[in-house]
C-alpha cells in the first residue's frame, strides 16, 4: 500500500481535506469514549461490579448448621446470614430488632415492672426463604425445640418458666442402633408437630409436655405476639436470646418435620433444606469442598442484599500460603471470614505488612481471652495452690508476678496475633472489661515474686515437680515454653510441660479439675459479663461440670445470683466486684486477648468484623475493579 501523495488535497480539491480530518477526529473521539470508561466489568453509575458474587475460603468444615445444636463460631458465622433471631447484634454489638419490631425494655412496656414478663411483637413481613410466613407459632416451636434438644446452648433459654420440665420430658432416647440421633429428634418433632404447624393435620398429636409454660402466644398461634414469662428475673437473657446461629434462631417446622437430623445439610427448598428468615439461603453444600449461598429474592428485611451469591471454598489450613496468593490475584475477596480470622500466621502477616497489600489488612481484637488456671478447689489433684491459705494464695501470686505478660505478647505473638490481657479476663471491647492496665494480676514484678516464693516455700519442696498442661497447636506451644522460661529465670523453679495432643481429651481432663496448672480460655458468646462469670467459676460452673479451677466461694455465688437478675446498668458494678474477688484470690494468671486478622480486597465494600462476628453479608457489595 503506497503512502500516497504527501498532501491530501491536490487534484481532488480542498473540500475533501476537512471531511477526512473530521472523520478521523470523530473516529478517534468514539474510540476514546469507548475506552475511557472504567475497566473490567461494565459499571452502573454507583460503581458496582456487574457480578455481585463474593468468594472467600473457609479453613474447616461445618460441624452442624442446626441452631438447636450449633456451638462453634465457624458455624454461626454462616448461620447468622441464613437464620434470624427475634433481635440481632448490630456492628457495634448493640441489640437491635430483627424479626421482633422492637427491643423490649421497661420503658416501652416490653418488659413488665417485675422483670418477669417480656412481650414481643413480630414483624408482619417476616418470611422464610421458602415463602412460609413467620407467625407466633414459629417462635414457640423454635424455642421449645431448642430446649427439648438439650444442645450446648439450650441454657440460653434456661430462665424461661417450664424450661426444666421440657428438658426432663424430652428425656433421652433409647440407644441408637443406626448411629444417628434420628429416634431422639424424630420423637421431639412428632411431639411438637401437632402443637404448631401440624395442628389439625391427620394423625398429628401434640405432646404438651414439650411446650414451655412460660412461652405463649396471646394473639393465637397465627398471630404476631409472643409472651415470654421467666421463672426468675434475668438481666442477661435478652443478650443470650439474641446470640445468632444458636437456640434463639427461628426455624421452619415445615422443613424440619420432614428430616429432623439432616435438614440443614440440603439446599433450601419448600419442604426441605437449610431454611431460615435471613437474607441468604443455602444453594449447595459439598462436604469438605464448597458451599454456595444465594441471596433471597425480595427479602423482607433490610438492608436489602446487594450480593447475589456467596461462594465458599473449603480449604486445608496447610494451604494458607497458596490461598493468600490466590487472594492477591483477586480469586478471593476476603480471607478471614467464616470464623477464620485466626488463620493468618505471623510470617504471612509480616510479609503483607511490608507489601502494597498492607492497607487491605484488617486487624480486629476478638472476644477471646487465654489465661492460666490453678487447681484451687480439687484437693485430690493436689499441688501447692489448693485452698485459700496464705501460702496457697501467696504461691499463686508468686507464679503470677513472675510472668511478663507484655513480653509474652511481643515474643510469642509479635504483638500481631494477640495482645497482653491487662484489663481483666473479659476481653477488651466487651462489657465487663476493666480497662487497660486495670487488672493487678497483669503486673510483672519478679522481685516480689521471688520474695513470695521464699516466704511460702523456703525449701522449694512444695513447688518441686509442678506441671503445666496444655493442648498442642497454634500459640499454645510457644506460650508454654515462654511460661516455663519465665518461671525458671525469675523464680528458679523448673515446671514440667505436659502437652496433650488431643484437644477433646485435654478439655475433658481440664474441666474435670485434673490439672494443677492448665491453659484455660473462653470465647464470649453474648455481650454480657454473665456469660463469663456464670460459666467459669462458682456453683453454676461446678454443677455444669465446667469448673476448671474449682474456685467456689459463697460470696461470689450470691453476688452472681444478684447480678444475673439485674439489667446490665445495675449489674455491671456487681460483676466487677466478682472480678475483684477473683483477682484478690489470684485465681488466674492473665495471658492474652486474641486478635483476628483479615485480608479484604479494596473492591469489597462493607466487609469487616467486630469483637464478636463478621459483618453480615447483606451489608457487602462488590465494587467494579
Amino acid at each position, binding site marked *: 500500500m503506497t503512502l500516497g501523495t504527501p498532501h491530501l488535497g491536490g487534484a481532488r480539491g480542498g473540500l475533501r481535506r476537512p471531511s477526512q480530518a473530521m472523520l478521523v477526529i470523530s473516529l478517534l473521539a468514539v474510540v476514546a469514549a469507548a475506552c475511557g470508561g472504567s475497566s473490567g466489568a461494565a459499571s452502573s453509575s454507583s460503581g458496582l461490579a456487574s457480578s455481585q458474587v463474593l468468594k472467600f475460603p473457609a479453613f474447616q*468444615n*461445618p*460441624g*452442624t448448621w*442446626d441452631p438447636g*445444636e450449633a*456451638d*462453634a463460631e465457624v458455624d454461626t458465622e454462616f448461620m447468622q446470614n441464613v437464620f434470624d433471631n427475634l433481635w440481632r447484634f448490630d456492628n457495634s454489638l448493640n441489640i437491635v430488632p430483627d424479626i421482633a419490631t422492637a427491643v423490649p425494655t421497661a420503658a416501652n412496656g416490653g418488659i413488665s415492672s417485675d422483670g418477669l414478663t417480656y412481650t414481643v411483637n413480630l414483624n408482619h413481613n417476616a418470611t422464610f426463604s421458602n415463602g412460609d410466613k413467620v407467625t407466633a407459632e414459629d417462635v414457640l416451636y423454635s424455642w421449645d425445640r431448642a430446649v427439648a434438644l*438439650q*444442645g*450446648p*446452648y*439450650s441454657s440460653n433459654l434456661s430462665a424461661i418458666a417450664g424450661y426444666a420440665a421440657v428438658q426432663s420430658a424430652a428425656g*433421652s*432416647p433409647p*440407644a*441408637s*442402633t*443406626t*448411629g*444417628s*440421633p434420628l429416634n*431422639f*429428634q424424630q420423637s421431639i418433632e412428632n411431639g411438637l408437630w401437632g402443637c404448631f404447624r401440624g395442628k389439625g393435620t391427620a394423625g398429628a398429636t401434640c405432646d404438651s409436655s414439650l411446650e414451655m409454660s412460660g412461652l405463649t402466644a396471646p394473639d393465637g398461634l397465627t398471630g404476631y405476639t409472643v409472651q415470654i414469662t421467666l421463672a426468675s428475673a434475668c438481666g442477661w437473657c435478652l443478650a443470650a436470646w439474641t446470640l445468632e446461629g444458636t437456640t434463639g434462631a427461628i426455624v421452619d417446622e415445615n422443613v424440619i418435620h420432614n428430616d429432623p*437430623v*439432616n435438614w440443614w*445439610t440440603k439446599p433450601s427448598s419448600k419442604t426441605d433444606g437449610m431454611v431460615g428468615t435471613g437474607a441468604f439461603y443455602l444453594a449447595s453444600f459439598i*462436604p*469438605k*469442598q464448597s458451599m454456595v449461598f444465594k441471596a433471597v429474592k425480595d427479602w423482607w428485611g433490610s438492608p436489602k442484599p446487594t450480593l447475589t451469591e456467596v461462594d465458599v471454598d473449603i*480449604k*486445608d489450613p*496447610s*494451604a494458607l500460603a*497458596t*490461598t493468600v*496468593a*490466590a487472594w492477591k490475584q483477586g480469586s478471593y475477596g476476603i480471607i478471614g471470614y467464616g470464623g477464620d480470622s485466626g488463620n493468618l500466621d505471623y510470617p504471612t502477616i509480616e510479609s503483607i505488612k511490608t507489601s502494597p497489600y498492607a492497607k487491605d489488612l484488617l486487624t480486629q481484637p476478638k472476644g477471646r481471652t487465654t489465661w492460666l488456671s490453678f487447681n484451687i478447689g480439687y484437693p485430690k489433684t493436689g499441688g501447692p495452690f489448693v485452698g485459700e491459705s496464705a501460702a496457697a494464695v501467696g504461691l499463686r501470686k508468686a507464679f503470677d508476678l513472675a510472668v511478663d505478660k507484655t513480653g509474652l505478647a511481643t515474643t510469642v505473638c509479635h504483638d500481631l496475633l494477640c495482645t497482653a490481657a491487662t484489663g481483666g479476663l473479659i476481653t477488651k471491647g466487651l462489657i465487663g472489661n476493666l480497662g487497660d492496665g486495670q487488672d493487678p494480676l497483669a503486673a510483672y514484678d519478679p522481685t516480689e515474686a521471688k520474695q513470695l516464693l521464699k516466704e511460702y516455700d523456703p525449701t522449694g519442696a512444695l513447688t518441686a515437680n509442678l506441671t503445666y498442661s496444655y493442648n498442642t497447636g497454634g500459640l499454645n506451644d510457644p506460650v508454654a515454653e515462654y511460661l516455663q522460661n519465665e518461671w525458671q529465670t525469675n523464680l528458679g523453679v523448673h515446671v514440667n510441660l505436659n502437652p496433650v495432643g*488431643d*484437644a*477433646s*481429651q485435654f*478439655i*475433658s481432663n481440664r*474441666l474435670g479439675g485434673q490439672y494443677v496448672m492448665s491453659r484455660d*480460655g*473462653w*470465647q464470649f458468646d453474648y455481650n454480657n459479663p454473665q456469660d463469663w462469670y456464670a460459666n467459669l467459676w462458682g456453683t453454676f460452673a461446678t454443677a*455444669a*461440670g*465446667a469448673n476448671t479451677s474449682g474456685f467456689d466461694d459463697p460470696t461470689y455465688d450470691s453476688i452472681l445470683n444478684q447480678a444475673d437478675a439485674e439489667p446490665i446498668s445495675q449489674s455491671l458494678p456487681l460483676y466487677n466486684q466478682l472480678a475483684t474477688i477473683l483477682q484478690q484470690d489470684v485465681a488466674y494468671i492473665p495471658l492474652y486477648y486474641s486478635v483476628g486478622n483479615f485480608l479484604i480486597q479494596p473492591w469489597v465494600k462493607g466487609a469487616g468484623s467486630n469483637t464478636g462476628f463478621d459483618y453480615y453479608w447483606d451489608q457487602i457489595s462488590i465494587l467494579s475493579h
Partner: protein
Amino acid sequence: MSRASSFIGGEAVPKVTRGTLVYIIQRLAIIALTLLVVSFVVFVVVHALPGNAFISQRVHGKTLQLLLHEYGLDQPVLIQYWNFLKGAIHGNLGVSLYIRGEAVTPLVLRELSVSCELGGSALIITIGMGMTFGVLAAIRQNTWVDYLLTSIAVIGYTVPSFVIAGLGVMIFANFLGSVTGGAFAYSPVWTGTYGTIGELWLPALAIGFYTSGQITRITRASMLEVIQQDYIRTARAKGLRERVVTIRHALRNALVPVISILGTTVVGILVGVLVIENIFGIPGLGKEFVESILQHDYNVTVGVFTIFALLIGLSNLAVDLIYTVVDPRIRY
C-alpha cells in the same frame, strides 16, 4: 524365585490345579477376610482412643452424654461394630460425627476418585519413568548415562517423597517463579475436586519418583541379563536393527520382574498418596485418613482404612493375574 511364592501359600500348599477361577475365588475370600479383620481392629482401636468428636468448651457433662447416646456411642464396642457391619455390607458406612449426620459413603467415594486420579497418574509416571530409565541405563551400560540414571534411581527409592515434593516446590514454584516473574511457575493451589494437569503433575511426580527407583533398577538388571543371552545374539545375526531387537525381545522378559514388584509398587504409591495429599492439601483419602483420626470421626477412619485394604488386595490379585498373561509358565 517365582512370583507366586511371594504370596505365602504358593509353595507351602499344593498348587491348585483346578483353574484360575478357583484361585480368584480363594483370593477374594482372603480379601474379604482381610477387610473384616482390618475393619474390626481399626474400629475397636479408634473407639478406644480417649476424647471424642463432640467435646468443646460448651459441650461436656450432660450435653455430651446426650450426644453420645444419640449417636449410639455409649454402647459396647462390639454392638456398635455389629451395627456398623450390618450397614457396611449394604454399602452404608454410617454417618460422620464431625459433619454431623453427613453420610460417609458418598464422601469417601468422592475422595477415593481423587486419590485414584493422583495415584493413577503416579503409577503411569512411575512405570513410564522407571522403565525408560532402566532401558536407557541398560543400553548405555557403564557410560555416564548409566551412572546418572542409576543414581537418580537410588535417590528415588531412598529419599522420602516429601523431600522430593519439597525440592519440586523449591525448583518449580519458587525458583522458577522468581526467575520468570511468576509466568511459568508451578502453583500448588488445588482448585476444585480434581485439580488440573498443571496442578497434578508435581504431586504425582513426587509420589512416583519413589517407586520408580526400584523399577529402574530391576528393569536395568533384567535387561542386562537378557541382552547377554544367546537368542538375542541370534536375532541380531538375522540382521534386525539393534533397537528393535532390544525393545521387542529384551523388554518382554524384563517386564516379568517389573510386574512381580507391581504389588509393592502399588503399596508404595498408596503410602505416597497418604503423605503427599497432606502436603498439598489434596482432598483425597490420604488427607481424610489423617484428619478423621485427629477428629475422632470413627466411621470415616474405618471406611478409609477398609478401602485402602480393598485396593491393595484387588491390585495384588490383578497383578498376579496379569502375571499369567506375561509369563505363560505361571499357572494357577
